[in-house]
């Protein structure tokens, strides 16, 4: 296996007396699809929020591509190459699909006020490149025909895809997807699966939170299971499914 991309070391997170994460350590390797599963309230989204700098961890540290991630600085995390989507979709509703993806290019572009006002060659070229890349990405996630529609008018499945396109626009090394298949029907899930596999083929590592066990087991190279904020298992899907602790905590004593 290839090198380590992300290493979480003993992450702790409390909310008052409630422990959201306790001593969570995990390692994500370059180029894999890594699943994070667990019952509701197990701390999956909390881990995402710590990872992407939205939460300040109470203990532990995150090493990403050899650099220590600074807590509470989401924009720096994005710059280092971690992009995410949200469990409850967070698009810029009153911007068009195109503009949403263009915002994703923000972190990789530089034009400031003077560039914007003067429209010098560098800015116009940069702006054209932003637009071109956004078009490519809308094509990539198959919603190019909705480019000029407001994000909030897109169908649920398309909104999920748009959010992925926006995340990809930041040129991430690691794409963290928070329940991308939630609320999707069978066909939509199948095409989402293709999309995620395509993203991995392009060299982007994927971290996936998902409730759809079939999707996780079929797609992921390795899976970690969280329960009550603790990691109870981390292995390849076939072994995770057989782990008695996982069966007890998550699969309710039987495997479907």
């Amino acid at each position: 296996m290839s090198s380590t991309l992300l290493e979480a070391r003993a992450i702790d997170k409390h909310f008052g007396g409630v422990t959201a994460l306790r001593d969570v350590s995990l390692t994500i390797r370059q180029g894999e699809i890594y699943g994070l599963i667990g019952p509701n309230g197990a701390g999956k989204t909390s881990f995402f929020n710590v990872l992407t700098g939205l939460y300040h961890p109470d203990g532990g540290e995150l090493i990403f591509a050899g650099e220590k991630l600074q807590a509470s600085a989401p924009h720096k995390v994005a710059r280092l190459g971690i992009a995410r989507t949200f469990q409850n979709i967070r698009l810029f509703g009153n911007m068009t699909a195109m503009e949403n993806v263009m915002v994703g290019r923000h972190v990789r572009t530089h034009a400031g006020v003077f560039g914007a006002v003067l429209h010098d060659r560098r800015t116009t070229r940069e702006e054209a490149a932003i637009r071109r890349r956004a078009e490519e990405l809308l094509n990539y996630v198959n919603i190019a025909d909705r480019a000029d529609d407001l994000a909030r008018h897109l169908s649920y499945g398309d909104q999920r895809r748009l959010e992925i396109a926006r995340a990809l626009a930041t040129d991430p090394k690691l794409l963290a997807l928070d329940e991308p298949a939630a609320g999707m029907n069978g066909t939509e899930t199948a095409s989402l699966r293709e999309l995620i596999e395509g993203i991995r083929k392009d060299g982007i590592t994927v971290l996936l939170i998902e409730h759809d066990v079939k999707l996780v087991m079929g797609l992921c190279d390795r899976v970690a299971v969280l329960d009550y904020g603790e990691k109870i298992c981390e292995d390849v899907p076939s072994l995770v499914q057989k782990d008695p602790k996982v069966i007890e905590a998550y699969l309710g004593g039987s495997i479907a």
Partner: protein
Amino acid sequence: MTPSSTLETLRTDKRIVIAATVIIGIALAVLPFIIGSGLGNSWLRILNFALLYIMLALGLNIVVGFAGLLDLGYIAFYAVGAYLYALLASPHFGLHLPVWVIIPAGAALAGIFGALLGAPTLRLRGDYLAIVTLGFGEIVRIFLNNLNAPVNITNGPQGISGIDPIHLGGFTLAKPISLLGFTLPSLHAYYYLFLALALFIVFVTIRLENSRIGRAWVAIREDEIAAKSCGINTRNIKLLAFTMGASFGGVAGGLFAGFQGFVSPESFNLMESVMVLCMVVLGGMGNIPGVILGGILLTILPEIFRHGSGPVQLAIFGKILLDPEALRMLLFGLALIVVMLYRPAGLWPSTTRRREFRGDSTNDELKAGE
């Protein structure tokens, strides 16, 4: 559509744009002469004030319309610009700096004040931000009111009078300018100067709107957390919105001081902030033509009510029943309510906002059809 016909429409579109620009340009150029000879100089003054308010509304639009940060103390930046002009070009300190120094300095100082306001309020949104900015506006006004002791800086409630009129290249705009046998009256000269700067501000705003920075502002308005996760440094981008918006206010303030020849804290009260906010909201938040329309309407309508309600009452009732000044505010309030009821997105919303409302109405129709 075939490529050649698309090209054809593009060409016609371009021709229409050029024609419209020429027509609007001519209209704007002859406007002061039409109004000056038809309605008199008082309306010409009102027209000049409309241009100042357009600049203010466009500045506030960056903060409120684009970045979604509710600012109720915006007039403070107008005050900063105006007082800077008054202090640097009046007998008060005996300084008489040229206008091309003062106006940029006013923009810069107002921008700094914008950042000063922005910095402590970065974590606030909505109602909370509104309260803090309202306080900021009042603090600036009260400072201006009281900075006459122990050292007299602002001359307190009396304000500063005898401010130099704006000089440009050896001409003073306070007197009619004679050039090549053609005489340009003072108010007309001010009109062209204000128009030029208003157009400049419109230009800057349009360029900013369609830029990486403009998109980041709107992204913050739409969803701050998502904006952060997209790599936007929300702190810097918000401060930039406050700074840019404030600097427009500073420019307008400087022009106001030079035009009026007198400034006092009275001119910068909360009602003025509310008025500018109304221009932005009523015209169409975030949409530049809408905001300009709001600025024009809200400067001119109250004056029409003020000048018109007396004669109308006399004609109908034979006497004046209601004080025109009171009636003016009453009608103004009514106009606000009617607009908010029937055009909640503003009089001239942006195309996206229009689409947003149209989308909603189709949904409503669908629901009604069920």
